[in-house]
């Protein structure tokens, strides 16, 4: 599958695809990404609930949380106690379910290959929410619209770094041309494997995966589901052609059934 979604979305001459590489092995769980994102994008506060989920009171990505730091306590981890931290974000899929199903064109592929919501277009139908295999996008109660990470579309258009990546104290969040990030991630993975960090793995970067490769991918230290990520997501629209065929034959069957029902002559 092509890693150049911008070209397939009508951008003949476009800049390189941009993305995030989130290296969770150096995340210190400070949540600067969450705050910097909200400050820049004006995302509202998202509830004041103590969850008991370690230091994670944000809980998940959603309409009012575009970066979410997960905390996983593994004090019994063989070798050394671990406290995993990972900053999750919209994956900006090559094949984006939210974008595919959006009926209004509010969701948009940008020239950078990222996926954004046009707030002035969105009518809050909620279809994207159900279509995202990562549970990223949500509909905000207060304004009825769908919202998610824009990869700071406004900033990157001016050559600026997205707010979260800029704030990140340890460069756990890296922003750049996707090709470059992929090389960097491979190198980092090899370093970790050489250092004997079992379980280190890249998540989402494989163009052969079910979303055609993510524009925002991760280096994880454990299995994806430990972080609340789906282990092998497949974009729902891959099955849509088949669904349409079944819908067509079902509709035809209904028409036929109606015709058959009328057999037996006039009353």
């Amino acid at each position, binding site marked *: 599958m092509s890693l150049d979604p*911008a070209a*397939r*979305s*009508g*951008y*003949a001459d476009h800049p390189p695809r941009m993305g995030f590489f989130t290296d969770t092995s150096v995340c210190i769980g*400070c*949540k*600067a990404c*969450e*705050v*910097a994102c909200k*400050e*820049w994008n004006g995302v509202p506060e998202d509830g004041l609930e103590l969850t008991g989920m370690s230091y994670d009171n944000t809980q998940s990505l959603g309409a009012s949380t575009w970066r979410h730091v997960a905390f996983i306590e593994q004090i019994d981890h063989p070798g050394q106690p671990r406290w995993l931290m990972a900053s999750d974000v919209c994956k900006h899929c090559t094949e984006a379910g939210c*974008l*595919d199903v959006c009926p209004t*064109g*509010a*969701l*948009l*592929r*940008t020239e950078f290959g990222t996926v*954004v919501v*046009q707030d*002035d*277009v969105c009518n809050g139908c909620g279809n994207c929410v159900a279509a995202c295999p990562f549970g990223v996008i949500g509909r905000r109660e207060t304004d009825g619209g769908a919202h998610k990470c824009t990869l*700071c*579309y*406004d*900033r990157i*258009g*001016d050559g*600026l770094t997205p*707010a979260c990546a*800029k*704030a*990140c*104290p340890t460069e756990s969040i890296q922003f750049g041309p996707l090709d470059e990030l992929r090389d960097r991630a491979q190198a980092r993975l090899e370093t970790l494997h050489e250092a004997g960090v079992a379980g280190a793995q890249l998540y989402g970067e494989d163009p052969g995966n079910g979303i055609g490769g993510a524009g925002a991918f991760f280096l994880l230290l454990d299995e994806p589901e430990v972080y609340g990520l789906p282990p092998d997501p497949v974009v729902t629209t891959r099955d849509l052609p088949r669904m349409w065929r079944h819908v067509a034959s079902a509709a035809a069957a209904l028409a036929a059934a109606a015709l058959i029902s009328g057999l037996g002559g006039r009353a």
Partner: protein
Amino acid sequence: MADRAWLRWPVARQLTGPDKLGRGAATRSRRTDSIAPRIRGADRVVKSVCPYCAVGCAQQVYVRDEQVIQIEGDPDSPVSRGRLCPKGSASLQLTTGAAREYRVRYRRPFGTDWEDLDLEAAMDMIADRVIESRRKGWQQEVDGKPVRRTLGFASLGGATLDNEENYLIKKLFTALGAIQIENQARI
């Protein structure tokens, strides 16, 4: 006109342009086409320092129409390299958020609620209070030794203040004879 309006209809753009499926170029709104970071329009960028902890991360304060519109890390800093922690990243909310008070509030002795008070009046009253407490707590000698000081009033705070502010506070209060001048460093 009508023609052109019709051509902006995304369906029309789908039909006439390369984005047949309506997932990119064809569906862009006018607002999306004109998107720009709000700091692009800043009148000035002011160099600053984060007000929270003592790492001293450098900040850039963006101002438009005499309002602070954004605060970010300054990549030039050899201390912080442009990065900020969650608190530093919340500097905009700290300085421009709803929690800030902008009016003097006054509670009279035995009062049950706040009252309004003019800043100038408040400053004048405080000056009077200082003079009076200073007088009441004055000690010329202790144990036969000259001390020329007052225990009548005290001050606490200064670890989040500027050096210049602390300097004036120390200078003024010491000259007034106050010695109970303290800050967070003891706490």
